[in-house]
């Protein structure tokens, strides 16, 4: 009998404690971001699609050494890289850019290795990303030996067709460099 009453008293007290908690929260300021009026400032950890990182002194030149590790490690097969060894003639691209018309299924484990193992200097000619297939696993960013890849932070990326999500990352890098130059000039 006494234990029942004790239990009940404890339960009733817990009700008051609950009211105290919500009452306190009621009086404190909002913690949500009031979107159209405020925006999130901390986007460091946001994973957008990948972007190329330029070398320090030339914003138009990517850090990429065309080792193709990212292309090989990508489980969705959404990266295509074209490059050539300086002095030699540009390779005629064997693979076409990944377009909507010929989306290939993710490669099986038995595919031939495509990443370069030698230390030949190569120059990047094209870096195409099919963001429709990307699962944002981040393996490409992790596996890049020269940290040439980073996640972009465009939170508001939206498009009306698949074509809007096929990016030429090299072109994007050059465009970004151009826009920063313009800004500096202004």
């Amino acid at each position, binding site marked *: 009998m006494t234990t029942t009453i004790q239990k009940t008293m404890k339960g009733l007290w817990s009700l008051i404690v609950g009211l105290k908690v*919500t009452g306190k929260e*009621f009086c404190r*300021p909002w913690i949500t971001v009031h979107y159209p009026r405020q925006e999130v400032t901390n986007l460091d950890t946001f994973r957008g699609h990948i972007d190329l990182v330029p070398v320090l002194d030339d914003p138009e030149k990517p850090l990429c050494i065309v080792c193709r590790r990212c292309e090989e490690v990508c489980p969705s097969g959404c990266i295509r890289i074209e490059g050539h060894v300086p002095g030699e003639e540009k390779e005629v691209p064997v693979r076409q850019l990944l377009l909507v018309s010929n989306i290939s299924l993710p490669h099986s484990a038995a595919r031939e290795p495509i990443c370069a193992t030698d230390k030949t200097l190569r120059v990047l000619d094209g870096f195409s990303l099919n963001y429709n297939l990307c699962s944002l696993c981040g393996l490409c960013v992790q596996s890049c030996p020269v940290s040439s890849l980073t996640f972009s932070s465009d939170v508001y990326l939206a498009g009306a067709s698949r074509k809007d999500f096929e990016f030429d990352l090299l072109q994007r890098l050059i465009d970004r460099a151009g826009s920063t130059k313009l800004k500096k000039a202004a």
Partner: protein
Amino acid sequence: MTQILQFLMLPLVHLIVALIAILTFIALNGLILVYVERKVAGFIQRRPGPFEVGPHGLLQPLADALKLVGKQLVMPRGADRILFWVAPLLSFAPVAICLLPIPFGPYLLGLNVNLGLLLVLAFSGLNVLALCLAGWGSNNKYALLGAARAVAQSVAYEIPLLLSVLCVAFTCGSLSFVDITASQTRGLLSWNVFSQPLAFLIFFVSALAETNRAPFDLPEAESELTAGFHTEYSGMGFGLFFLAEYSYMIVVSAVASVLFLGGWSGPFFSGHWWMLGKIYALILIMMWFRWTYPRVRFDQLLNICWKWLIPLSLINLLGTALIINLVR
């Protein structure tokens, strides 16, 4: 001028004017309480709540009401046509009568009847019937389950509610709201909540259950029964149930403030402002409860009633009767 006053003093005219005023009050209250409830929910969860329609979202309930009025009335196949449409009307209609005998101020009173308490209890009981009919008439299993819960819950909680109300009726010796208020006008300490604290607590808990408010909102338990008894209602059918729920909140808060908190009497300035203040304070506490406590399980709900509230209110009633007899 005197002729107009005489015309207004006619009982029928008085009644009609009072009913119209009460209906206006209820409709306005519906708008205000929807807004307040959503704001309270927002603040407790530390978000702004409705904000986009009008300044600080003030026009949001108006937009909601317009949407509800504009919607098509749909009835599911196989539903009972008459019962299905009678239910929301039956749920809402008694509210006006329930507010009629409640004195909002010394002179602000719709109908002075000496059995006002009985009138309110009798007509508020009709709401259970409405929920039952809605659940039965919808031809929907969730609605039926909700209706079954509503009936079990309301029948159970009506008993402690009545017993705690009886305590007050014993001490005041009257069933008229006017007399009960009059007996509490001798200062703060004459309020019944100080002489009958247990009865007040039992009344408030039972009132929460009677109005199907959280944590006793089992008849509509959205996580288990989609929406319980009003699953199949859209548009104004749903709107009427919604309005009825908020109106019953007003009714139970008004009855609680008259029975236990001194009605319109209060320190410094007695009058309808005190009454409104008490009503809204109680409603705010109900909302606070809703956003604090999780819904109880059905067996817990009935256990609280049969094992705690009814024995406690019986003991309280017997004690009250004994003391009153000894004093006399």
